[in-house]
């Protein structure tokens, strides 16, 4: 069977830990020409510069050649070609396909029409598993383990794909969650039920203050998008309440780290950047190592 990397729900605890261990080797030595002579296709049916550059850098540092597109308007997709036909065509050229698509389920479907491994680089609001892996890697690296962590998620927990996937992936590691969000953007029922059925401890709160900050290991901040609010006054209120300032970290645990999937707008004040607890830029860099690990895993290369 072909290797694919489609969804966090496909990953076992062993899969996760083995990818993290491989990623650590790439962090120690990012330039390894393990993919000499291989071709990696990056098909971005929806633009995402950050993710694409990260994957392409990973492929380049492994010595692979990269083909693909970042603007579907320049391809036959704009002429009405189906995803199936595009994937079939690219399969003739590439050893592995990295794809982002605006339709949900696109990556799973692509994996059914080709024998070439598919890496999902985001399918609509559904899954973005390499982001989850770099989040896990960041937890693992800063805390030394994934087991028994106290994790506070702040902001848009309703639409935030990254927090949903992270909850799913951490279910193997006995976490304690604090979900901090305005009522309008609280963690969806499905994920709260997921926590219950997997015996994951969690609480929900609307207040974001030292109460929760001082006892937690990880502050996972997310962006609150203006478009989610019909009442803009409410948005203005919420925007300021869920903003982290450096002074709020004064009595935090020494091991606390602040994560954010980026891009941030104003949910983390710029003065936090100077704190040694700010980790979001390194977090993004970890994406390179985890993506190197994922690409090699798809090609059975160690």
């Amino acid at each position, binding site marked *: 069977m072909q290797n694919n990397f489609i*969804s966090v*729900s496909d990953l076992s605890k062993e899969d996760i830990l083995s990818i993290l261990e491989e990623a650590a080797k790439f962090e120690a030595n990012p330039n390894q020409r393990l993919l000499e002579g291989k071709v990696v296709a990056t098909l971005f049916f929806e633009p995402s510069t950050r993710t694409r550059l990260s994957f392409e850098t990973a492929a380049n540092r492994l010595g692979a050649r990269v083909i693909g597109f970042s603007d579907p308007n320049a391809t036959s997709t704009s002429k009405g070609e*189906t*995803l*199936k036909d595009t994937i079939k065509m690219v399969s003739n050229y590439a050893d592995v396909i990295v794809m982002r*698509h*605006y*339709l*949900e*389920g*696109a990556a*799973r*479907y692509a994996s059914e029409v080709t024998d070439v491994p598919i890496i999902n680089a985001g*399918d*609509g*609001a*559904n*899954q973005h598993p390499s982001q989850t892996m770099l989040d896990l890697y960041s937890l693992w690296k800063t805390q030394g383990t994934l087991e028994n962590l106290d994790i506070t998620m702040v902001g848009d927990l309703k639409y935030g794909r990254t927090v949903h996937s992270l909850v799913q992936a951490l279910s193997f590691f006995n976490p304690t969650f604090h979900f901090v969000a305005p009522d309008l953007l609280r963690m969806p029922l*499905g994920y709260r039920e997921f926590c219950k059925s997997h015996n994951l401890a969690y609480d929900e709160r609307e207040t974001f203050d030292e109460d929760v900050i001082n006892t937690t290991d990880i502050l996972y901040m997310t962006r609150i998008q203006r478009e989610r609010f019909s009442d803009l006054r409410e948005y203005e209120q919420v925007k300021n309440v869920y903003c982290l300032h450096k002074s709020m970290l004064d009595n935090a645990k020494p091991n606390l780290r602040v994560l954010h999937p980026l891009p941030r707008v104003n949910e983390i004040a710029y003065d936090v950047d100077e704190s040694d607890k700010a980790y979001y830029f390194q977090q993004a860099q970890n994406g390179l190592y985890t993506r190197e690990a994922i690409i090699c895993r798809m090609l059975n290369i160690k």
Partner: protein
Amino acid sequence: MSAIANGTVIDHIPAEVTFKIVKILDLYNHPGAITIGTNLDSKTLGKKGIIKVADRFISDEEIGRLSVVAPNVTLNIIKDYQIVQKKYVQYPKQIVGVVKCSNPKCITNHQPVATKMEVFDVAKKSLRCVYCERVMQHEEIELL
């Protein structure tokens, strides 16, 4: 209800889906005799439906379709006025091309891709789209 010589008796239908089953099996166009009963008293279901169709047998593919709306019906296969086989409708591993995905952004609603569902929770009769991973509650389920 009169007995049939050869055909299928579909029993233990929750009354509210009796006519849905008529539709799923496209019995409107069946030339043989059909007896449909519904809102009959039932000890286990409260109100149940029963459909007797002469000279019509139900394929496994059709059983898969039935499972979506009525997961617990029984099928009695009749030959020569005798029940020769009893089949219990059970959820298949995957339900292909029967249910519409309720997620407007799912690929199955935009490209020529057959829908594919898995049973998410047998007790709640909820389904999960294999592609976009959306979970659909039983009330949301819409047939194609």
